[in-house]
Structures are given as C-alpha cells and as structure tokens.
C-alpha cells in the first residue's frame, strides 16, 4: 500500500462500525451491490478486502469469488463509478487472490437478505484435514432449509445453477425449487 494512505480498513474480523459524518471510501465501495445478486452489497458478500484513501486516489482491493467469475469486470466498473459519484476521486481497483474467498465471509445481514430473496444462504464452509480432498459420491446430505416455507429438508436438483456459486434445490415439503449458495 502507498505511504500516502490516510485510511485503511479491511473486511477481516474485528471491523468497527462506520464512522459518523460523511461516508468513508470503504462505506461507498462496500455499498455497491453485486451485479449477479443485487440484493447484497460487496461488503456483505465479503469480497472487498481493503480500501485505502491515498494521495493518488482510492485504492480498492477485491478478491474474486470464483476464478472465472464474469461479474468481476462489472464490479470494477461499478466501484470506479461509485467512488467518482461520491466525489472521492479516481478509484484504482486491484485484485488479491490469497486468501481465497470463502462463503464464510458473507455477513449476517447478507445472509438474511439472500434468504429474503428466496436464495438459501450457505452453511459453514467445509473444513479439511491433512491429506487429499475426500471424494463425495452421491448427493451431499447436509440439510438446507427451504427459504420459502422454512421446511428443514430439501434435495439437490443440480450442482450448478445460474451462476457457479449457486446450486438448484427443491423443498421436500412445499416442492418449490430454490437456489442455494454453495459452501466453499
């Protein structure tokens, strides 16, 4: 980060509340909505890793959800537009690959908004011990509650849905299909 940084906030654990008064660059960037899931903001999605206000403009560091996520380009453009619109000058958007994004970084408010939009939020991301990635044959058995009727059990219809980060499921009670953000 440049030495001219005057404000530096990351989305890791221990983030304090937003500062009073005019919105900070972090608040402006964080409030940009995800183009594929416009019910949640980038901050709620957990992909904004760092926002620094420097003499040279606002330096925003984001991390992709998936390697091939096609929304990244739109997200960059939206961030630049939002920072400019807030009168904070030019934004420089950088990518960071490590640590890799995990659905555990989706905030509580993000999860609530997903559920309200009929998209089941992810559970806890799988934890792996040492050794090879275990092979899973057959449908995963973890319960995913229906976001429509609240029934606790559903079945997987397809492991990939409209985007790489979601799968298609069906409620065993109301029989309505719904999407679920897969844990990664």
């Amino acid at each position, binding site marked *: 980060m440049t030495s001219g940084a005057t404000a530096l906030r990351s989305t890791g654990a221990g983030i304090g509340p937003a500062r009073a008064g005019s919105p900070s660059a972090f608040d402006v960037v964080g409030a940009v909505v995800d183009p594929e899931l416009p019910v949640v903001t980038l901050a709620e999605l957990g992909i904004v890793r760092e926002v620094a206000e420097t003499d040279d403009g606002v330096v925003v560091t984001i991390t992709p959800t998936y390697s091939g996520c096609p929304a990244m380009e739109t997200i960059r453009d939206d961030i630049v537009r939002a920072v400019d619109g807030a009168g904070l000058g030019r934004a420089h958007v*950088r*990518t960071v*690959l490590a640590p*890799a994004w995990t659905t555990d970084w989706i905030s509580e408010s993000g999860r609530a908004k997903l559920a309200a939009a009929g998209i089941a939020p992810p559970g806890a991301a799988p934890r792996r011990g040492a050794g090879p990635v275990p092979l899973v044959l057959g449908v995963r058995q973890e319960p995913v509650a229906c976001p429509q009727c609240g029934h606790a059990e559903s079945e997987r219809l*397809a492991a990939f849905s409209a985007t790489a980060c979601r799968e298609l499921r069906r409620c065993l009670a109301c029989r309505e299909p719904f999407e679920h953000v897969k844990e990664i």
Partner: protein
Amino acid sequence: MSFDDAYDALTDHDDDARWAYGTGFSDPLAGVPTAVPDGVDPADLAAYCLMLGDDALVMSHRLQQWVTRAPELEDEMALANIGLDLLGQARLLLSRAGEVEQAGIEQAGFENAGGPARDEDALAYLRDPADFRNVRLAERADEDFAHLVARLLVFATWRLALLDRLTSSRDPVLAAIGAKGVKEATYHREYAAGWVVRLGDGTDLSHTRMRAAVDAVEPPAGELFEPHEVELRLAAAGVAVDPSALREEYDGVLAEVHRVATLPPPPPFEAATVGAGRDGVHGPELVEILNEMQELARAVPGGVW
C-alpha cells in the same frame, strides 16, 4: 449511447478494451505481485504456467462445445460453469506466464527487452498448435456424453490433486491459483464422478456405454503422470508439482468411482505411442479447437469488440 450504428453502440471504448474474452476485460492479475521467486529460471516458470493454463483453456473450450448438446438443461449449466471456472484459471495462468516470460527477457537483456509482455489474449489467440503445452487428454473430442464424463473424471481428479499440492508452491501466485482452484475442481470431480456412477450403475445400455467410454479414455491418461523436465526442475525448487507424485491419489479415486459404478477396475495405462502435449506435439483435434477459438482474433488482429 447512440444507436445510429448498432455495432458501434455495442463497442466498449475504454482504454483497456479487449476483443478477446469479452468487452473491456482487464488484467485478471491487476495488482497481484509479479516477482519471480529466488533461484527460479523465469523461462521455466513461464513454461510451467503455460502448461497448466493451456490444460484449462483447451479443456474449457471442449466443455463449451457441449453447451446446447447436453442431455438436460441442468447439465448444460454444469458444463458451462465448469468451463467458466477453467477459463478463469486459464486467464490467471496465461497472464502469469506472459509476465514471467517478460521478466526473463529483461533479465537476459534480449533485444526485445523493454517491450510489453505477451498478455493472456496474445497467448490464447495468437499461438500456433505446436506452441501449446496442454496434455493431449484436454484436446480429445468426446464421442458421446459417457466419453465426456469419463474424460472429465480423469482430468478433474488429476487436476484437483495437482492444484492441492500447488498450494504450497514457493511461487505465491501459483499457490493462490491452486488454493482457489481446489475449491472449484472439487465440484468438477464430484460432478463427473456422479455421472460415471449414475451411468455405470444404471441400465444395461448405459453400463455398456459407460464401460466403453472408460476403456477408451483412461488407458492413454498415463501422459498425465509423466514429468516434463521443466516440471522436475521446478518441483526440485519447490515451485511446481511433480505429476508422478499424483498417481496414488488418482488411482485411489478412480478405483473407488469404478467400484461404486459397478464397473471393472480401471484398465492399465497403455505405453505412450504418441508424442507428448507438454512438448507441443498435438493431434488434429487441437488444430480444430484453435481454428474455431482463434478465427476471429486472427481475422481481425487487434480488433475491439
């Protein structure tokens, strides 16, 4: 936006406009540190990034060809998503290859020092078949859906094992690409294994065809575990993965999938009778892929889409 000219209205006039992967796509490695680890030959590292990137790029293209041809809409979605994951990995790896290649040129003081690095587009669209370093498995055409899932099982099982080990690479970019890719390849393997089981343990007809597919796809896969000299040098330097070390995990996964799918144990690898993709020896199948993939880029060099 003016619609007097529909074509013009679709055009992105950003300075960073690219005609290749999409409109106005920017460097996927923007802001990622570009240093080459100490004691590593940049030419070797660039070659290795090309190998792994070409595997992903060519396999992605083959998967994309299945869109509109898969048995169910859900499978088209799955194959498109898997292809997209691999395309994303390819973009990162080709971008890294171009940067590292240029670092080597600067270091050696060649006459083209100071020039721009070859970017992902130049590497994907302007190389000839003999310059591609993908394993030949990636370029094979699929005779039917059973061949596709058999091939994807082999590819994803091998690549997952590779990416998982790559997470401890001394090259931080490769380590990060590995860590991200592991999460994706886990789903790819699960999808392919699920279909091999479903078809193998299905009707008499599906079993017969699934068995024919694994018998055709698996024996030539020995190439995946034969290390190239670049891989050996970089593995010794703690940067790359020696693919022969992946064999045990691969054998275990394939044996388990075959067992649950009620298929006979995996057939043995056949002795290699053709040149290696890692050395740039490819079949007419890669030429066919590149003719399709590179046609527009070659017809309109530097065109902005």
